């Protein structure tokens, strides 16, 4: 799932319609009102609130990203050529017949994790869970003969690899117990593996013209998209405005 940021509101008294705002870092005082559009807004019956606008923008961005990330188009199904071999077991047949998409499997994974977190684990079950991890790991990672170090065995007095003693002249040397703990961590869920948003204090988010890709210094108040000037404003209105909402 993409992370989507709610854009800060640009104005508190915006009428809907074709209002464009010179964007100077979300300063409400810089809002320009187009009087021509005020009539159109009145005809539609009252201004929208900012929260609505933000929610719409949020939805628009999420939809667009989902579209860009899609692997298969569910509307276009291609039949498998018929010479394909028949399933050999009922279980295989079931798996081969699944028509689910990745989002269903990921939703399942999240639902199961949420369930595990909600339900207080009985103590015994919890202990068993903790106990299985190292066991599973040691099964999965048998040290091949001739391989350098039994990483998980933790033989007392074992030398730290020379590579580290050279490289680690600055930071403290690698702590063996810490390394073992690190190697024993089970995989993260898919959702937990995502990169975090940029650190605060970095460069501000850049905005581009929705039509031509140049800097988008002017904001469409109807859909939140940015444009670079009048020419692209017209193009935006006739093509993509509100497309993703």
């Amino acid at each position, binding site marked *: 799932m*993409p*992370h*989507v940021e709610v854009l800060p509101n640009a104005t508190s008294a915006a009428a809907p319609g074709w209002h464009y705002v010179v964007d100077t870092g979300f300063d409400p005082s810089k809002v320009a009102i187009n009087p021509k559009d005020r009539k159109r807004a009145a005809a539609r019956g009252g201004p929208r609130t900012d929260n609505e606008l933000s929610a719409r923008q949020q939805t628009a*961005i999420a939809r667009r*990203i989902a579209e860009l990330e*899609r*692997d*298969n*188009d569910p509307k276009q*199904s*291609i*039949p*498998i*050529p018929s010479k*394909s071999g028949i*399933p050999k*077991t009922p279980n*295989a047949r079931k*798996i*081969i*017949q*699944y028509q689910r998409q*990745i989002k269903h*499997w*990921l939703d399942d*994974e999240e639902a199961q994790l949420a369930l595990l977190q909600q339900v207080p684990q009985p103590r015994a079950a919890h202990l068993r869970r903790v106990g299985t991890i190292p066991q*599973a*790991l040691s*099964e*999965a*990672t048998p040290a091949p003969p*001739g*391989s*350098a170090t039994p*990483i998980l065995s933790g033989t007392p007095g074992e030398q730290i690899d020379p*590579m580290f003693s050279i*490289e*680690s002249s600055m*930071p403290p040397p690698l702590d063996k117990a810490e*390394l073992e703990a*690190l*190697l024993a*961590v*089970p*995989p*993260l*869920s*898919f959702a937990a*593996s*995502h*990169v975090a*948003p*940029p650190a605060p204090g970095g460069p501000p988010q850049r905005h*581009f013209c929705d*039509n031509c*890709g*140049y800097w988008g210094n002017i904001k469409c108040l109807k859909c939140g998209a940015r444009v*670079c*000037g009048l020419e692209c404003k017209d193009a935006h209105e006739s*093509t993509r405005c509100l497309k993703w909402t």
Partner: protein
Amino acid sequence: MPPKGSKKGSASAPKQTLVLDNGAYTLKAGLVPSTSANPSYDNCSVIPNCIARSARDKRTYVASELSNCKDFGELVFRRPVEKGFIVNWEAQKAIWEHEFLEASAGEGLRCNPKETNLLLTEKPNCPKELQKNCDEIVFEQFEFAAYYRCVGPTLNAWNTSSPSSLPQECLLIIDTSYSDTTILPVYSGQLLQSAVKRLNVGGKLLTNYLKELSSLRHYNMLEETYLLNEIKEAVSYVAPSTQQFCIDLERTWKGRLGDKRTLDSSIVLDYVLPDYEHSSHGYARPHDPAKSRMRRGLQPQQGPREDLLPLGNERFAVPELLFNPTDIGIQEAGLPEAIMQSLNSLPEALKVTMLANVLVIGGNSLIPGFMERLESELRTLVPAEYLLNISRADDPIKHTWLGAARFASHPDLLKHVLVKKTEYDENGSAWLARKFAGGGAK
């Protein structure tokens, strides 16, 4: 439940392993003898992992058959792998059968699974249910003699300079592929799971983004995924720096009404679109404003018709998403910062060594300027006294396969991780899942 009644007397281990890096965009595959040969890139076949259907010639192309296709117009793709994981086994099974089992198999790829080991790679953080499906299909449907599944990029630890049965000690893998870009710190061939990071930007997103932009600005090309991927590969570049990005953005701007600017023809290109009658592939050439005007309805009376797609800021704004995902609202840090997010969760001593051993793999790393931008931005984030050593694999597409093949050509290494079909039949898939847990070849 797996069926019982496996045949006895199959005690002798198979003499070959099908090494299969099962990517979302392409399969990387080759049969590797179990005796220590020294496999090379040449032993690896790259096969489209898709079934394509053309509405024009009404043909269905399975995987490698795509090379027979001449008209890529409105070609629709069905891909068994989504977000890097095998999701649709109906399609994946058909492709595996076509490429490895039947007469249609390519040279040196056809095998009898009952006499073959399978070394299959997966992406990190695969949902357990999908792993289970995969294991069950491998043994119950394909009946491979023995099988090992692990996180593919970790196998690059076996790509050491001299053939060795020891993995590289510390390796930071950046895998920028079709589905996404993942960051994988690997210690002695074992993945440090807690530090794995995934950036939601991969080749697929870049192609779709270029398709969206071109369709908005010039032609409706929404049905032309194949073509837009080809154009992306032909014209994309990564701006060397944020500053240069801004300069190039100025140079490719048309200006305002009343203040028109001349496009910089050192950046702006015209892509001559294929017509799929005389040409199956297009090509790029420097932008010609006169010809571009002709495009708008003023085609020559005689001679071949030419359709031009002008490409300006699309050339660098599209791959820029790898470095600034927030440009289109993906709330994730760019790749250099993402790498530091991963490393900062590790002990300092490991972080230092990882930084001295960064290896980049995956097709996006071939975009001109990618490595330079990554290195220079990463350098500004790494403490000055730390060594930063970053390189791209010679063949960033086949490199994981090569590491896997090198691993598979050590009989003693392979023996310790392979699970035999007889063991699976006896113990079932939950047991197998526990056995493969941990995610790295070691």
